[in-house]
């Protein structure tokens, strides 16, 4: 076996992300408790649960926005699996702008509102060293097209865009460097139902086309039904059920999941 094929074989059965016993408290209140799971290359993991169940806390700890009290988060890098909780901030921030992407629920948190759409999409390219204006602009135009924003609006600021457009712009800005792992916190939250549907379609297309690995937090079961390969259900900071998405949604075992699923079916 050559070195290359060996590395390839290792990549195939080593998780991209390995989370072990992750716990985060806010003083006496529990954020998320003793959470462990793996995410493999090309896989989309959905995390669902009611408001306050610890979804955003967990995601923030994974993306390095918040430091967990306990636990390990191993990310597969070129140098092998590295615990992102223990690594220095410089290295973690480098991963954040090269290998990871983070889509915020509120596009205002993920966009630079004072910078044109093109500048927003180009920022990550420039952050990793792109220095050819023409190439950066061409990538921006390409990505605006991929998220269905008219290229003619490339020089407008996001404040001139609708909520749905802003969210699509945020997605383009995040995916332009082909990150290896995408974190999304309620990417369709706060949008009208029809706008949500269009965004979901678009996300599904991108996930398939790019073979994205992603962790999507949502309280909307329709989102995970459409996007997630596997599902984790959270309640009071704990994971109460996990499995293949269809399995969990069609045959929920935990009574809380049953409640969650049935309340959706009633809508």
């Amino acid at each position, binding site marked *: 076996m050559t070195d290359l094929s060996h590395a390839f074989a290792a990549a195939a059965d080593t998780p991209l992300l390995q989370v072990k016993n992750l716990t985060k408290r806010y003083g006496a209140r529990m954020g998320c408790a003793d959470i462990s799971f793996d995410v493999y290359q090309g896989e989309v993991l959905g995390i669902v649960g009611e408001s306050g169940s610890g979804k955003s806390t967990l995601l923030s700890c994974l993306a390095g926005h918040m430091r967990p009290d306990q636990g390990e988060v191993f990310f597969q890098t070129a140098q092998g699996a590295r615990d992102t909780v223990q690594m220095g901030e410089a290295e973690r921030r480098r991963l954040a702008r090269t290998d990871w992407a983070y889509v915020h629920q509120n596009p205002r948190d993920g966009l630079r509102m004072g910078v*044109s759409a093109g500048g927003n999409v180009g920022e990550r390219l420039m952050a990793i060293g792109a220095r050819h204006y023409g190439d950066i602009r061409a990538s921006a135009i390409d990505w605006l097209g991929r998220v269905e924003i008219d290229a003619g609006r490339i020089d407008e600021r996001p404040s001139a865009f609708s909520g749905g457009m802003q969210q699509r712009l945020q997605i383009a800005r995040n995916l332009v460097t082909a990150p290896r792992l995408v974190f999304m916190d309620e990417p369709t939250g706060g949008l009208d139902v029809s706008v949500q549907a269009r965004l979901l379609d678009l996300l599904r297309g991108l996930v398939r086309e790019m073979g994205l690995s992603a962790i999507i937090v949502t309280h909307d079961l329709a989102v995970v039904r459409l996007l997630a390969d596997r599902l984790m259900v959270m309640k009071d900071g704990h994971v109460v059920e996990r499995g293949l998405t269809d399995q969990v949604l069609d045959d929920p075992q935990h009574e809380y999941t049953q409640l969650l699923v049935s309340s959706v079916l009633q809508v």
Partner: protein
Amino acid sequence: MTDQAYNFAYLDEDTKRMIRRAILKGVAIPGYQVPFASREMPMPYGWGTGGVQVTAACLTPDDVLKVIDQGADDTTNAVSIRKFFVATAGIAVTEATDKATIIQTRHRIPEAALTAGQIMVYQVPIPEPLRFLEPREVETRKMHELEEYGLMHVKLYEDIAKHGQIATSYAYPVRVEGRYVMDPSPIPKFDNPKLSGNAALQLFGAGREQRIYAIPPFTHVVSLDFDDHPFSPSKANHSCDLCASDTSYLDEVITDDQGGRMFVCSDTDYCATRRAAGHIGALGGQTITEKAAE
């Protein structure tokens, strides 16, 4: 003839020592913004209190001071600062670049090459080059620490997207010795190349923002740009109407209300020195006042 009410150069010795420590740290880490406890000076912030404090901390009784404002030695700001140091330090002053040991400046670097042993002191209004796109101080410090400078190019990208070229013509950002990105103070980008490899020590003082930074002699300073939009230190496509220099930075001056105008060196000392040496521009070597008097 020092005014008895003040310590030499106005500031007390403890304050000067504190400022010198900040300067030394700045010299040790070229381009890094060193925080310092800026003092109230008997003049408004817009008058360059940061530069004045740096000058005060550097001055010795033997120094010869030159003060430039917009390239000229005779504007109100330059005259006041010069008077201030004559009154408080009793030092000698000059308008000649080559005679000065310390040159405090706003807006320009002299045309004449600076020499070893000279100190340039720049007045800086906003020292943080990332401030434009990232208002959070904690975040910009982090970006400097981790060399996350992509945002500087976002600013240049926006310029080109809006104007078809990099329209930033003053305070054009630079990278110092391959490390810190720095705001060179509001000098025209025409002056940027002089920042690099300069024999003089260059010190930058921001009073309101309480920052000091430095470019030690012979430091490599590069103006940021794109491969397909390279930095270019542009100037008016003209020669000086007074001294005929075609390499100096020119100001366009309106000479009458019939649309008359002329181009003259912004560096008044440089222009006068050339005229004294016999160089005559298109308008016959008349000064603006002479022309206006006709």
